[in-house]
């Protein structure tokens, strides 16, 4: 039995989720009390005690001098413990070494700004220099609006670096998690040698709301969900969260 305080907290968190991710209004789902975050992901995927976080140092960036942006980031740093919406490091998965990058949507919907794009690139370059496979768990609302054109250009930057890594023979596995949209969906998220997706994850370029406004009709059930992508040939497999580690270990083994 949940206490009244917990019930209130749940309700509060639910509203907060919806504010951050209005697309969910279209298809409400029951959320667990604590959202599955990047730390949970690393715990679940990496062999215990093997994750070594990359210590990239970044200055404060606010290229548009956008009001309130720095304050917002500082507040979120306190809440999440991350410097931006992404953490990266090397680890072992089922005994196989790999570089793992996880995006955390609690931080401004894991929108892509300079720091996030650069973290993807540096992690990829680390993987290239150390001949390791690269695994990115994507989740993003898209471009970081507050960084304007520099945010858009991260799409080209990350895509170029990933392409270079792949041309050099590197294995890149993209794991699409809910939601992966906009500029992230149209750059490194869809460039995997192998692409996995979590069940029911929303993956698409334009948000469902925008599409509905454009075409003036309701979208079909399941549109832009992982299973829809699988059906249309854009993902190798839809894999349940509890099976992801084994699946990744198997793919790493097959490329070892």
């Amino acid at each position, binding site marked *: 039995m949940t206490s009244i305080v917990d019930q209130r907290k749940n309700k509060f968190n639910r509203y907060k989720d919806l504010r951050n991710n209005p697309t969910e209004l279209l298809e409400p789902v029951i959320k667990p009390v604590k959202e599955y975050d990047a730390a949970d992901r690393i715990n679940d995927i990496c062999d215990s005690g093997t994750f070594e976080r990359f210590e990239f140092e970044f*200055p404060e960036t606010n290229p548009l001098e956008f009001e309130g942006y720095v304050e917002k980031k500082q507040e979120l740093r306190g809440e999440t413990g991350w410097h931006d919406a992404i953490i990266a490091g090397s680890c072992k998965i089922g005994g196989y070494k790999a570089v793992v990058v996880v995006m955390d949507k609690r931080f401004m919907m894991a929108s892509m700004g300079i720091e996030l794009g650069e973290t993807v690139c540096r992690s990829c370059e680390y993987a290239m220099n150390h001949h390791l496979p690269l695994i990115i768990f994507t989740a993003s609302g898209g471009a970081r609006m507050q960084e304007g054109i520099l945010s858009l250009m991260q799409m080209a930057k990350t*895509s170029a670096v990933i392409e270079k890594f792949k041309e050099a023979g590197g294995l890149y596995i993209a794991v699409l998690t809910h939601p992966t949209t906009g500029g992230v969906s149209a750059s490194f998220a869809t460039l995997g040698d192998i692409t996995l997706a979590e069940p029911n994850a929303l993956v698409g370029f334009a948000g469902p709301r925008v599409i509905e406004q454009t075409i003036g009709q309701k979208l079909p059930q399941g549109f832009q969900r992982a299973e829809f992508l699988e059906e249309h040939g854009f993902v190798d497999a839809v894999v349940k969260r509890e099976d992801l580690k084994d699946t990744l270990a198997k793919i790493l083994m097959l490329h070892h």
Partner: protein
Amino acid sequence: MKAIDRVLKARDKDRPKITDYIDNVFTDFFEQKGDLLGKDDASIYGGIALFHGQPVTVLGHRKGNDVSENVICNFGMPGPEGYRKALRLMKQAEKFNRPIITFVDTPGAYPGLEAEMYGISQAISGNLAAMSTLKVPVITIVTGEGSSGGALGIAVANKVYMLENAVYSVLSPEGFASILWHDSAKRDEAAEAMKLTAADLLEFGVIDGIISERGIELSVVNETDEVKNYSRLYSRVDKQIATALKELSKLGAEELAKDRFNKFRSFDEAYLKVDASARMENV
């Protein structure tokens, strides 16, 4: 001039279109249609042409000149087929060692049901990745609206230029205002805050130069005058392409790809220097 005025100018339906640039800057244009995968997307227009006698591949967004053309061209909003067609033309240019010139003028990629179903994300990311490795010179000119991934999808170039009144941004000001302030009516403020004018982008280091539009809008008295006035713009565009091609012709195939890679890898390095602020204080 306010940022929003530039946005409106960039969207002006009477601005020269890709068809005008092809007619006036190039000769012997041969249009190539289709993505060879099942569709021709008219919102991307392109083919082979001569630029001062040199074969080049030229392509870009097409909005159309009147309402019926607008509809055919989907107002310059390509679907995945458009980006795949562009990529096909560019890969072919690489094969035949032709420089590539792209013209950007789009409100964005089409946010539609079929576009998603057939992989608009994959088509754009595929172009970004493939363009970064092309072994021929790539030159992009943003002539009108350069909006979002839909613009960038054909704009990973060694040299990127903007017309003076063109804009280039992560999203339309309306979209920006709607996302950040939940009010698309605040587009004027958004346009200002986004820093999307040619001068802003030059300062950010995202583009390499601005093509002046001075003197082209004055005294549009009759049709002859209009042609005359725009001809000044075409000759400036011509000159810019010629200069860029001359500069890039010094680079070999691998160097061209490397040059482009380095440009996009490090355009934002000034924002990533940890000691930048400390050094500023010392100055």
